[in-house]
């Protein structure tokens, strides 16, 4: 209970800090939403009217407090920039709620790929005694990790989309319209996210397993007459997974929070892209909520990892 309380306090503290930093950032950076909307066609009257409409004439502290009380009451506010219909602006909750599934599905797809490939690969790699295979995997994974993410995305698009025609680049279909088409399209961006992470995770797992294989209890298991296979899966894997869990947690946080670049490359209307565009249009209510969402996801994933850790490693829960 105390543990939970502490975690909750940390969460709230961090979210508060993050929201303040985001708010201050918006105060500092040049350009505001009014000039963003009106562009070069701005007239003083329109500017004044818009400023009034958006409530930008209040002092910063008042605006922050207004915004924060709204959020605490469950009102996430409305976008400064996106319309819902002719006269209303899009509520942030609706806007983000619309984009979130794309990002979450993308994250889920990549995560499944990462886990499904990297764990068998890491185990196989650790088991193998083949020097050539070891060196080859080493170079391949290192190279994969060395490719800038957007370059990888472009290459995936070019190879699978233009040359092989396995998918139509930009042919994104909404998940509401065509779930299968949506899934089929998402495979490729997910692949671009997953590739380097698969390499990282497989390497990490392999190193962790190699380290565990030096442990005394492995020797004990062999002394019982167990085969290498039994030792690996029955003893080493679980122990080797403990650090991998933290590592995977970091990766989850990374992809759930910001597949920004990949969304941009593949033209996916997800929260990453929404964040980038909202920053440049100074759409403060949207940016604040997205940043809070990202911060929340990161902290929450770490919290889950913490719990999972306790499940996997019986030594921790006792402390």
């Amino acid at each position, binding site marked *: 209970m105390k543990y939970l309380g502490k975690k909750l306090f940390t969460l709230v503290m961090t979210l508060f800090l993050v929201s303040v930093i985001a708010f201050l950032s918006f105060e500092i*950076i040049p350009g505001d939403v009014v000039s963003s909307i009106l562009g*070069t*066609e*701005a007239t003083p009257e329109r500017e004044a009217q818009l400023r009034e409409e958006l409530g930008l004439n209040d002092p910063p502290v008042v605006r922050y407090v207004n915004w924060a009380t709204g959020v605490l009451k469950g009102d996430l506010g409305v976008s400064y920039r996106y319309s819902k*219909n*002719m006269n209303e602006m899009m509520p942030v909750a609706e806007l983000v709620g619309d984009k979130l599934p794309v990002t979450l599905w993308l994250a889920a797809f990549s995560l499944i790929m990462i886990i499904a490939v990297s764990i068998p690969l890491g185990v196989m790699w650790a088991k193998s005694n083949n020097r050539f295979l070891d060196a080859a995997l080493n170079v391949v994974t290192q190279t994969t990790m060395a490719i800038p993410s957007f370059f990888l995305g472009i290459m995936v698009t070019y190879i699978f989309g233009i040359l092989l025609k396995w998918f*139509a680049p*930009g042919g994104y279909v909404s998940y509401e319209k065509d779930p299968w088409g949506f899934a089929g399209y998402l495979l490729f961006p997910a692949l671009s996210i997953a590739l380097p992470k698969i390499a990282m995770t497989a390497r990490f797992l392999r190193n962790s397993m190699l380290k565990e294989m030096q442990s005394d209890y492995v020797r004990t298991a062999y002394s019982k007459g167990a085969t290498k296979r039994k030792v690996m899966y029955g003893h080493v894997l679980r122990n080797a997974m403990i650090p991998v869990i933290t590592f995977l947690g970091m990766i989850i946080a990374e992809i759930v929070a910001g597949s920004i670049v990949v969304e941009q490359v593949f033209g996916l209307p997800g929260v990453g892209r929404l964040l980038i565009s909202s920053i*440049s249009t100074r759409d403060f209510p949207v940016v604040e909520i997205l940043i809070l969402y990202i911060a929340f996801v990161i902290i929450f994933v770490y919290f889950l990892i913490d719990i999972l850790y306790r499940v996997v490693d019986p030594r921790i829960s006792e402390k």
Partner: protein
Amino acid sequence: MKKRLFGLFLSALLTMAVLGGCTDGTVEPSVDHSSKEPTYGGSVVVGIQQDFDSLDPHKATAAGTKEVLFNIFEGLVKPDENGNLMNAIASDYTVSEDGLRYTFTLRENVKFHNGNVVTAEDVKYSLERASGLLDGTPLVSTLRTVTKVDIIDEQTVQVTVGSANAELIYGFVAAIIPAGSGEDATADPVGTGPFSYVSYKPQEGMIVQKFADYWQTGLPYLDEVNFKIVNSPDSALLELQGKTIDVYAYLTDSQAGLLQNDYQVLASASNVVQALYLNNAVAPLDDVRVRRAICYALDRDEINLFVGGGKGTLLSAGMLPTLKDYYVDLNDIYGTTDNQQKAKDLLTEAGYPDGFDLEIAIPSNYEFHMQTGEVIVEQLKAVGINATIQGYEWNSWLEQVYNGRQFEATISGVTSDMTPGYLLTRFQTDSPKNFINFSSPEYDDIFKRAENTMDLKLKADYYAQAQKILCDLAGSAFIQAPANQTAISKKLAGYKFYPVYVQDMSTVYFVEE
């Protein structure tokens, strides 16, 4: 490309993203479908570059929004592909001799998408809303001079303005919307255009469908048009190659080359004035000799070749050739290639024999301007001017350069609307849009005279004089109206180019295979 980040939010200053009309026959469709019969039905995906800044036709300022809303909303008059006005909701109109009273006769039985017939009430409401008579804030700034809107009878509306202006009629392209819909919180956009609004999703796009009761019988051909927001020029190319979009209007030159075989690729002049805008108020650019030196130093042929494949139209003053009655060709004054000796002489004369440092501020989301900047830096280097490029995020550029005027030089494009005065008004000394701080009493005087005359001939004459002054004083180093290249699916025909920024889908149809 840097366009990725901000490509969606470009405002009216768009350059590459500008559809320009070319009424003098430079449009040469690579496939001629004119012999084929138009067919009805079908659905088309049009790639657009910007997200919508508003779904309210009066509040929308972004060219990228207006180009789409053109299909949903109409004014009393609307532009045609030749840059002339045609009657739309009004079947006829008259202007009083003094230019202060406009009387519109409404077309009979024009229907809104909601099925209601357009009434004089609707027109009065729309014009009052746009001109600021409802709440004091003009939403359409050209209509700010409107003082009164009267309903004469059910089919007639009279508009009174405070001052005469021959160009005011262009303001009546402002959308007519159902009375009261501007205050209805849940209203979807409803207009009288060929297509009616279906849905809009931020970052994805807008879907419109055929309006069966459109007053121009026979139009539109298509059942549905999906205006899809394309993330970046690069993904636009991929999507065109993947055939997920049918029409895209903002190709770069190298993309146009790649698509030549699979699409009808059409080039046209845009309605953008690209220039190396110089801040006339800061030293050493406050010296006319220095500004002229820069004009001589530029090799505009080379710029055109490098950044636009040689397809742009070179300019020397702030007017576009598409506004052909008002345009004068002044390219001989500084020449289209560089004259380094002249430039150096002028610099020496001005006291800068060894050149000087010049910072060029460029909104970095415009790849086209950034590349132009790279070429210009090289060309200025040849005459001893040490220019550097400073990239700005679009909003920062707006605040610091355009509105704040804190800059030495900038490369940008100014988009024209249909009124010839639009491009020249900003160079008046006290114009709020005079971001280059150009100051010439002579110019101010000429422009005032042009504005106040109702005689179009005389007006054209004044505008020509103004252009000469602007060019002679080297208010800025004007470069070109960049070419605009559009890819259209080979299955489509009937696409029309406008001298303004619209994507008219009403005349587009599928051809029989």
